[in-house]
């Protein structure tokens, strides 16, 4: 049995930033356990630019952003177990993992969960039709193209306008494939505005909203898809069915935090985010188990992943030092127009300013966010617009909380 003060599960952007931050807070005996050969996680296949604008003040590609953090952990001499797959995290923080060296058992004082997310598959959509080759989740296609150098198809339809789908529409176009359409079942795109402009509009790729793939055709390789409009209840409108010939269907239909280990560790989950319920330190209800990054909730920018991971890393270090106090907590609730708010609870004795991260339930124009408790307004923030694809961040001064406040609500009103 190996012993570490902190074991970080996952060597992507969240795991690396958390480990570095914990180290800088004075806890040196840290390890990262990563299933891949090289740290960096999914960033390694994101060869486009746009990373680091908020966090590092410069525009980097995915691999470059990963390199910044790989250097940080290397410089600090943080141990990385690579090609090592964690198979279990027990409630008492014993980590079991598998590698070519055998079965690894690690006893840790604190565990930081940073396993990231996976893509929703065709099977989960229950799309009717046949099961030919040529259907990929967008991220799998991205890896095959960018890391392995393969062409996944010549004529594609993309279902889902999440960021990976948009990025892959551009990527396939650049490689000479014809992208016939991007279909989005919702009446609005789930991707960042800048990606819609740079990846679709600049390449003349049509985006069809309220449209889905109704049927998949082809016995060996994909031969085409039937697309159709959907009504407000997302039911297919039969009269709008039309066939698009294609050899490839990419799916960008949602990311699912990979929390099988989390649940086995007995951590309580949030049904909306698909991640753990945490406080402002990103600590779960199991003391000493923290979570950050896409395993906690799906982010749109890696910059925010790094920020969140640093919070978790610093807090895990304080926990190991016995300095992480937790008093009574105040619940945080999503109110009108808000899909979720994270953290889901805040320690009353938290001295600092806390940021609340949230996603809205549908697109809005100009909005006013109100953070309130028992009818008393704690803070107000105004934003020019709000869309579900872009995470919002609101500051909250803990000192504004009253001693009898036990629930904070974040809600919004559209003002224009």
């Amino acid at each position: 049995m190996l012993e570490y003060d902190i074991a970080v599960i996952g060597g992507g952007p969240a795991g690396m930033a958390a480990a570095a931050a914990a180290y800088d807070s004075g806890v040196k005996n840290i390890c990262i356990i990563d299933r891949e050969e090289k740290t960096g996680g999914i960033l390694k296949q994101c060869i486009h630019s746009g990373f680091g604008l908020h966090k590092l003040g410069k525009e980097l590609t995915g691999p470059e952003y990963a390199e910044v953090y790989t250097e940080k952990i290397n410089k600090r001499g943080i141990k990385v177990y690579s090609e090592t797959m964690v198979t279990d995290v027990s409630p008492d923080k014993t980590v079991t993992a598998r590698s070519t060296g055998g079965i690894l058992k690690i006893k840790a004082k604190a565990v930081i969960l940073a396993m990231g997310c996976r893509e929703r598959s065709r099977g989960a959509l229950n799309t009717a039709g046949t099961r030919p080759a040529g259907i990929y989740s967008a991220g799998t296609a991205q890896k095959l193209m960018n890391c392995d150098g393969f062409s996944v198809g010549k004529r594609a339809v993309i279902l889902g306008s999440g960021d990976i789908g948009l990025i892959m529409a551009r990527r396939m176009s650049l490689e000479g494939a014809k992208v016939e359409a991007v279909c989005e079942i919702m009446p609005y795109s789930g991707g960042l505005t800048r990606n819609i402009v740079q990846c679709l509009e600049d390449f003349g790729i049509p985006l069809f909203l309220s449209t889905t793939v109704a049927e998949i055709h082809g016995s060996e390789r994909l031969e085409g898809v039937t697309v159709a409009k959907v009504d407000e209840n997302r039911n297919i409108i039969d009269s709008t069915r039309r066939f698009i010939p294609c050899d490839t269907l990419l799916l960008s239909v949602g990311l699912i935090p990979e929390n099988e280990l989390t649940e086995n560790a007995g951590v309580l989950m949030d049904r909306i985010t698909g991640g753990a319920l945490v406080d402002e330190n990103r600590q779960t209800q199991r003391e000493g188990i923290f979570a950050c990054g896409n395993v906690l909730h799906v982010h749109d920018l890696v910059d925010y992943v790094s920020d969140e991971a640093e919070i978790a890393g610093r807090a895990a270090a304080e926990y190991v030092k016995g300095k992480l106090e937790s008093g009574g907590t105040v619940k945080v609730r999503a109110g009108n127009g808000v899909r979720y708010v994270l953290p889901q609870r805040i320690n009353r004795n938290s001295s600092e300013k806390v940021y609340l991260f949230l996603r809205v339930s549908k697109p809005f124009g100009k909005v006013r966010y109100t953070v309130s408790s028992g009818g008393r307004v704690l803070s107000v923030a105004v934003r020019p617009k709000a869309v579900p694809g872009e995470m919002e961040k609101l500051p909250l001064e803990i000192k504004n909380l009253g001693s009898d406040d036990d629930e904070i609500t974040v809600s919004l009103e559209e003002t224009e």
Partner: protein
Amino acid sequence: MIYDVAVAGGGVIGAMTARELMRYRLKVCILEKENDVACGASKANSGIIHAGFDPEPGTLKAKLNVSGVPLLYKAVEELNVPYRNNGSVVAAFGAQEECTLTELYERGIKNGVKNMKIIDGNEARNIEPALSPEITKALLVPGAGIICPYALTIAAAGNAMDNGAELLRNFEICGIKKEEVFTVTASDGRTIQARYIVNCAGGYADRLAEMAGDMGFEIIPRAGEYMLLDKKEGKTVSHTIFQVPTANGKGVLVTPTADGNLLLGPTASQVKTPESTETTDAGLKTVASLARKSVPEINTRAVITSFTGVRASEKGGDFIIRRSEKVPGLVHAAAIDSPGLSSCAAIAVYVTELLRESGLETPENPDFDGTREDTHAFAKMSDEQKDKFIKRNPAYGRVICRCEGISEGEIVDALRRNPPALDIDGVKRRTRSGMGRCQGGFCTPYVMKLIAEENGTDETKVTKKGGKSYMLTGRL
């Protein structure tokens, strides 16, 4: 070379028959039109070992189902195929269905099914708390079980091959000529000769019979759609839950699978061809709503895949297992729909008997070994055993499929062990890599690489399921 017996069709019946024939000193081949065994109904069915209360007494189905179950349990032990004797519950809603339940019970008694019991709704809910409050009575059948049908087919074919049988893949039979012996021609021009042919061609059995000059029956392809749910839902029920068959259909079942998922289905609709394996919106909606009738709280949002199996039925309703009257040396094992899987071990013995009656000599093969190594042995080890095993075989430490925890070592085994997997779906059915909740999102690129390496080829030549089902369209 002239084979003693050519088994036409590498489904569960063909594979079990070939294995049975290897008990004797015989030259046997399996002719399979696809790139792998278990590509038809054998990969897409309910995976149920029926106890035998359903078939009409006196039919082949009744006889072979009831006598087949103990033989099947023995075979799956020898072949190390995942199965579980979980028992089944037939749920009745209201007085009219209770009458049918009594009929089923009586039919079961006539067929020789043991230990059945009719219980009331509350007793049923004590055993299975997730059952609907609307259920008034239920038939409890302890002898029923669940099994992975494609794992059985692969294991039986592999065991037959280990004992000397040959598997000819992509051998789509297009002509059968009988002179002194049979000459069988494939669509790609290959031919083989055999003294006897067993027709296990599933949905194509009528066409095969016709090619041989015996137009005796017509196969009716019937599609059944299924939904498979995440392993998190696998404990929703522990028994297989059937509905009482009514004038509106046989209902759908809700069952755990031998691998721990939850399976819902099937529908039943006549389709044009055995290739009609597409799923439909209407079919999947029917599956979900009928499953909810038995188990209201089913979480259908946890679906990880859906699929259609096409059953080979015949209007008479019974199996067609007989010597061809017109073509000596041809034995049919056709129209094997439910309870075909439950009966497969008995069918194999019966077919061998019919071959003997046709003149096949069957000297004992003293070298026959009916056992097969457990392909999931590694997964069943304790951490300490795994640690030791990985230290000797490091490839077992490299996890390729995250969802199911499948290592490179297990995948390479599947590419080497009889019958070797040649494509992505073949690896999936043998190892479960790609069969978990991400459905191959992470592992597919790695599995492609291993298939290419093992076959000395390039990833761009790797297919999903043979033919032109290429995964990639070239290099960048």
